[in-house]
């Protein structure tokens, strides 16, 4: 893999206009990645999801070279109907379109960051890989007091032009005081067997509100990794919703630092997977100061021989008195080959706190099915009704009514 990396790196660099210093930084990250390689099960965080093995078995040789020079045609048919929204369109890892038509132009700033800055204090090899190969990382700034009128949808599309490729994306968001942003990540893939590596960084200043909805719904054979780093100042709120369903392999990581008092973080997630899909959500919520709050709810419905993993950690610093932390993960295993793994972790150094977690997994409740059948539903209907109700619980946590409806329609949950 080393020669391949080196070769692809040189080819990629050649097509970009970078300063000498920038090339050196990128080289540094490349060397880091070459040293470490893809994470494997020997690392505690990857215990349940051996990425190295997954890539070897499902892709084999990866190519890291991306042609950032040639443009792709934007296919407007993928756009969401019936909801006015701002757009960012990624096609095969290249940003093809950014439009904030519905917003005041002077309130949003889009800065093309050509220089590579690694803002992630995540020393994983995937972060190194991302830093070495991303061509551009945009910084999107929402100015003080501005609340976006319409949600922003980021379309992550790939098409059949690429296969066995590694794609790296990076975006930085800054939300100034009293601002707010609704962000939907929508994955649309018609490509196969690529490894997509996404890093987002969110900086939330005082009183700002971020709502991030990640929707991976459409069937595809790609392997995805997404890392969200969220820094929160006083009174800020972050809400993250993850629908983990379409890709063959998918791991979402949320790292949230509650740096300011009265800040709060909400993470809700659904795994709805079948076949031999293997998905994971890993969250780390760091309560670093007093009076912070976090809430997490993760539910899985597992069919065939699918596997889901939830690793959630609540860390409470000794300064963070009056912390309120909650975590709940539930799973329904529908087939004898399905598997659910969880590692809900609490690490607590302050005494005046309220922290708890719960985890439950098992089969569909036969009594409930019996009840519904006695009311005239057939087995299939009863099953669907119960699963819908189980998942609806998480969807109902979405605080934005427009997005809630959109997601309900997408999943096909009826009330």
């Amino acid at each position, binding site marked *: 893999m080393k020669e391949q990396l080196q070769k692809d790196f040189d080819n990629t660099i050649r097509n970009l206009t970078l300063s000498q210093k920038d090339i050196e930084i990128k080289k540094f990250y490349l060397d880091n990645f070459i040293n470490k390689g893809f994470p494997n099960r020997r690392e505690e965080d990857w215990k349940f999801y051996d990425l190295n093995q997954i890539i070897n078995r499902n892709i084999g040789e990866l190519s890291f070279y991306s042609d950032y020079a040639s443009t792709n045609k934007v296919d407007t048919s993928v756009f969401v109907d019936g909801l006015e929204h701002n757009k960012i369109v990624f096609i095969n890892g290249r940003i093809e379109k950014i439009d904030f038509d519905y917003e005041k132009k002077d309130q949003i700033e889009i800065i093309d960051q050509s220089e590579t800055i690694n803002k992630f204090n995540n020393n994983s090899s995937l972060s190194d890989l991302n830093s070495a190969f991303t061509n551009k990382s945009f910084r999107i700034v929402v100015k003080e007091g501005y609340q976006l009128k319409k949600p922003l949808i980021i379309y992550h599309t790939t098409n059949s032009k690429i296969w066995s490729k590694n794609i790296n994306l990076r975006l930085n968001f800054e939300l100034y005081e009293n601002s707010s942003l609704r962000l939907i990540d929508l994955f649309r893939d018609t490509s196969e067997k690529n490894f997509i590596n996404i890093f987002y960084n969110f900086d939330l200043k005082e009183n700002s509100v971020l709502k991030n909805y990640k929707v991976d719904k459409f069937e595809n054979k790609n392997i995805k990794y997404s890392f969200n780093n969220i820094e929160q100042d006083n009174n800020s709120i972050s809400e993250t919703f993850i629908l983990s369903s379409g890709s063959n392999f998918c791991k979402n990581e949320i790292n949230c630092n509650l740096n300011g008092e009265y800040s709060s973080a909400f993470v809700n997630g659904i795994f709805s997977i079948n076949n031999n899909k293997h998905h994971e959500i890993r969250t780390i919520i760091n309560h670093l100061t007093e009076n912070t709050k976090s809430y997490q709810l993760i539910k899985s419905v597992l069919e065939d021989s699918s596997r889901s993993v939830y690793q959630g950690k609540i860390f409470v610093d000794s300064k963070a008195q009056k912390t309120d932390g909650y975590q709940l993960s539930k799973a329904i*295993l529908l087939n*004898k080959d399905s598997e659910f793994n969880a*590692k809900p972790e609490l*690490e607590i150094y*302050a*005494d005046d706190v309220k922290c*708890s977690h*719960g*985890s439950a997994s*098992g089969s569909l409740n036969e009594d409930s099915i019996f009840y519904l059948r006695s009311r005239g539903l057939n087995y299939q209907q009863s099953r669907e009704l119960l699963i819908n109700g189980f998942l609806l619980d998480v969807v109902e946590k979405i605080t934005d009514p427009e997005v809630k409806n959109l997601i309900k329609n997408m999943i096909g949950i009826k009330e």
Partner: protein
Amino acid sequence: MDNRQKEIDNLKDYKYGFTTDIENTRAPKGLNEDVIKFISNIKKEPQWMLDFRLKAYERFKQLKEPDWQKPKYPKIDYQDLYYYSAPKSMRDKPKNLEDLDPKLLETYKKLGIPLQEQKRLNGIAVDAVFDSVSVATTFRDELTKQGIIFCPISEAIQNHPDLVKKYLGSVIPVTDHFFATLNSAVFTDGSFAYIPEGVRCPMELSTYFRINASNTGQFERTLIVADKGSYVSYLEGCTAPMRDENQLHAANVELVALDDAEIKYSTVQNWYPGDKDGKGGIYNFVTKRGLCKGKNSKISWTQVETGSAITWKYPSCILKGDNSVGEFYSIAITNNHQKADTGTKMIHLGKNTKSKIISKGISAGHSDMTYRGLVDISPKATNSNNYTQCDSLLMGNKCGAHTVPYIKNKNSESNIAHEATTSKISEEQLHYCQQRGLSAEEAVGLIVNGFCKEVLQQLPMEFAVEAQKLVGISLEGSVG
């Protein structure tokens, strides 16, 4: 209340911290093949036992010391330890108590474990282990009548080689992890119990471990086999003198329950925890594992962990037989600079297996406590159930309480439920108690005992009383 106060004052310091001045026979310092041969030789072991040890040692040389645990400790120099130390008078084991060194008798009297016939604890058979050797076992005749074998493991190796050969290493193989393998190579003494088919053991069996010599590691090995349809309740207690150095205690405990058998294993662990500044104390790195081999078998672990500078152990159950049951009840209390990383593993292999985990952790002072547990339901363990509850109580903001459960469910017809909470003693409860005339410390004692009650109830009577006192004492000075 006066009495209780007096009692607490009496017990404020670690009262088992004395040393017995006694002449010792020691193995040469360090760890090598010769030392292992020395131990085997002094125990007059047959060749197969020596081979077992050497095989373990071969494996040990290839292993690396693990370092994933939460409490870190300075590197142990395994060549700077004595692996065998026994009172000289025990060289040729005395036939009866009259011949036993009076100093030893005195020691056990001071510890509250009288070995003499007339003063024996009623209804409990005790095997007393002093450093590397078992000094006395009480009530043996009575047990023999029922066919129960209860003796030091070194005797069992000579007198019941078939049983030992069959079961030793069957739950913790010689190729297991670092400390277990070390134990397999150099273990010195411990207890062996065999309950024959259909026998319900009429009394509690018990082992009392005492570390006395300095610079010594204690490596004891316990093997309990409950044959078909039998029942046994086994207790374990331990103390050590106060010393500035850290001492290593790496024991292996193996339990085997055959069809319809039940083993109940209770521990009150009160090794010397080190002084207020965290100097000295025992490193308690123990491997305890039970195998529910037969159908309908049951193994239940109960532990009260109040001592040791570092406790690092996970009493586990392998639920292999169909319908077998595993239970784990634990109270772990850390104060001052104590550290604990403890929990359990429940490995469900058979159909209709059930397990239950109740863990209560209390940390005070500068201490750090981790519950780490694994519940693994394999694809074949249809219709299995697990319930886990782990609660932590924090006193002060200089201590830590952590929960790290691993949950693996690979069977769709099995259920796992896990709950954990972390909190402090609520102001309302304290206020209520104080309003009724209890002092702050008494109120905390009462609330903590209530918090632990679910586990304390599982202990045999005699132990429960002692454990309840211990809970109060361990938290002494942590209020206010």
